[in-house]
């Protein structure tokens, strides 16, 4: 297995990065770090995919002129273009998602003053309790008067 992993070293590194990124995304408590984890996870997948398209000894998928007005288009010359296309799409998706989640994180910070969801939850429940007690007090006051 180790030998095979050594052979597939790009993929192996990619899945390690994927694991790290996903763990960050799931279990970091700070939102900014979660989002960085998301980015690491996405780039790891893209690395995996790009490594899958690589073929030893072939050129980048841009047609090369054969010197007499034609183009060399033998499929033995170029690496697989499909992963590159998919990853291009994926990068756009990941930057969109990053921007969106950062915007939400800023909004959360605006409301709670923290980037930690658990803390935000705690603050919210505290606020609710406070609100309820003030309402109860107000009601009691009304009743007393």
């Amino acid at each position, binding site marked *: *297995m180790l030998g*095979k*992993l050594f*052979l*597939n*070293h*790009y*993929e*192996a590194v990619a*899945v*390690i990065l*994927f*694991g*790290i990124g*996903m*763990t960050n995304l*799931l*279990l*970091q*408590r700070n939102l900014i770090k979660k989002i960085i984890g998301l980015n690491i996870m996405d780039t790891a997948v893209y690395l995996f995919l790009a*490594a*899958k*398209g*690589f*073929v*030893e000894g*072939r050129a980048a*998928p*841009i*047609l090369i*002129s054969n010197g007499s007005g034609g*183009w060399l*288009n*033998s*499929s*033995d*010359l*170029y690496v*697989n*273009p*499909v*992963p*590159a*296309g*998919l990853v*291009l*799409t994926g*990068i*756009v*998706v990941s*930057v*969109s*998602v990053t*921007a*969106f989640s*950062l*915007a*939400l994180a*800023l*909004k959360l910070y605006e409301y709670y003053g923290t980037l930690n969801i658990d803390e935000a939850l705690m603050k919210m429940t505290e606020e609710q309790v406070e609100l309820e007690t003030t309402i109860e007090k107000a009601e009691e006051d009304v009743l007393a008067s």
Partner: protein
Amino acid sequence: MHEELKNIWKNFFNWVLGNGPRPENEVIPPDPPPDLPFTQKPQDKYSRFHEATIKERYEQWLEIHGLHIFSILYSGLSILTCVVIVCLLLATVAELPPFGHERNPANNEVIRRYVEHGGHETGAQNIVAGLILDYRAFDTFGESAVLFTAAVSVLMILGASRRNKLNKSPSLKSETTSRNFLQRGPPSLDEPILRGVASLSIPAILMMGCVVVINGHLTPGGGFSGGAILSTALILASNAYGPERVHEFYNERTFIVSSSTALMIYALSKGYSFFTGANHFHSIIPKGTIGNIFSAGLILPLNICVGLIVAGTLYTFYSLFSKGDL
């Protein structure tokens, strides 16, 4: 022997309940020095004449150590998850077809056609550009839609609310804006070096971006990377000359109109292509000769549209994130 056991048990029981005499082996806390101010003296509850019940002790302990334990648990859990996922995937990777081998399942007839006929079928020299904007154009259309969705959502989340708040309390307006702006000093006024460099480099960056966009079907790059480069020119301009100057020609309305129009052109031209393709109609769009600027059918205009959308969207992101408005 029996009595002793009973005694020990009784002492233990009392210790748990928190009443009765102290066990022999308990460490007596030293008395506080007499000159300590009254507020810092240990409370009655914790003096050595009163013992806490086990519940109180547990709560006290939890209060002090709970967060710590929780974070240790959290990081332990995260490391465990990481290790499990990584091991599972590593085992999978070891089974996969070998890296860089030309007989892998992915190198099949699909790739052969892309490479061998991609040139004259799409007219693009850059096979990847032909792939994403012609063979698999639906994905790319979806990708632009993702960008559009994200831009609209960010605009909604950061843009609209701020305006509401300002409307509610106009007195706060100057204060909040200045606080957000001045955190790093005023960006525009006293920075001759920045402005000098910007005036030199902005045309160069714009040129570079345009080249990358326009040559997307010939060389690496294309609408997306070119658009990102163009947006950096806008960001630089906004930093050097102040956001107000950029705002004069690029505001929310411009953004929405330009990106909606560009996306619309994109959608309609791709829709035409999808429609004719599926119904086996002949498309009137010429492919041109490979290698020329005006070749590859729709790819050049599509790249320009994507470039516009991306440049606008990324600048919008920048603008919304830095000052919460466009």
